[in-house]
């Protein structure tokens, strides 16, 4: 019984670690994507250091130079960045 419980705990911990790892990777990819987007739009940013997702294709980003932008896709399908 103890062994079973221990195995369950181990498996749960492994699954949790994996999900955290995957989520971190996703966030990192999104941050890189938004960094490239802001660079393409010609906005000063440096690196995106924090992303808060507000909705579908709508993010509030914080840059390494302390600038903050809302980056989203507007109704016309254009990627737009608004300084906050």
């Amino acid at each position, binding site marked *: 019984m103890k062994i079973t419980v221990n195995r369950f705990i181990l498996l749960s911990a492994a699954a949790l670690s994996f999900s955290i790892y995957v989520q971190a990777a996703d966030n990192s990819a999104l941050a890189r*994507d938004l960094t*490239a*987007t802001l660079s393409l*739009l010609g906005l000063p940013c440096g690196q995106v250091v924090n992303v808060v997702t507000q909705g579908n294709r709508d993010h509030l980003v914080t840059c390494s130079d302390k600038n903050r932008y809302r980056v989203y896709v507007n109704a016309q*399908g254009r990627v737009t960045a608004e300084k906050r």
Partner: protein
Amino acid sequence: MRFAAKLALLMTALAAGCAAPGKPAAAPPDTTPGGQRQPASATVIAPDNLPSAPIKTIEPPPPEQEKAPEIPAVNPPAAAQPPAKTTDKPAAKPVAAPVSPPKSKAPETKTSTKPQPAQEPAAPPPLALTVLEQRLKDTSAIGVFTKLALKNQIDDLLTQFRARHEGSSKTPLSQLRKAYDNLLAKVHDLLKSGDPPLAAAIMNSREAIWLVLTDPARFAKL
């Protein structure tokens, strides 16, 4: 007795271990000069060290090994006996070393005689616009937001060209060219680290794409 045997075995293993991988300095001397010294203990140790100067500190014994180095120059390692096999490997390596320099020389002569054909295949041909568009969509080097922003800017540029061709805008071609170059530079920057082949292909297609954009007939077919 057992202990003594184990100790002897351990010492042998240690000696072999020291000899094998890490002896760049000591092993080289034996083998280099004629590639003849390779065999014996040095054989296992130093294929890499071959080129250095000779030192007869470790000279192993067997005449067979000496034969091996001489033979290997002509024949690849076709060892008949198990002990000889171990020596053959090193012998073969020395042979390979002398052979390699001639190979390098050969390519040089070839390149000198046929430089242009080699360069032509290296440069990827200009991409068709449709192919370029598809490859940009498919690449994983840039994310969704970046692709969408890029598409927006490409569409903006195409709108400017369309207006010019239709006569509704008189934007100077030099200004369009500047915008076009800037956009391509941005694309190249985005792709150069994540998808270098596509970045290179785009830069190689720069003039071909420009010709399409500036030709009203070809532009209309886009």
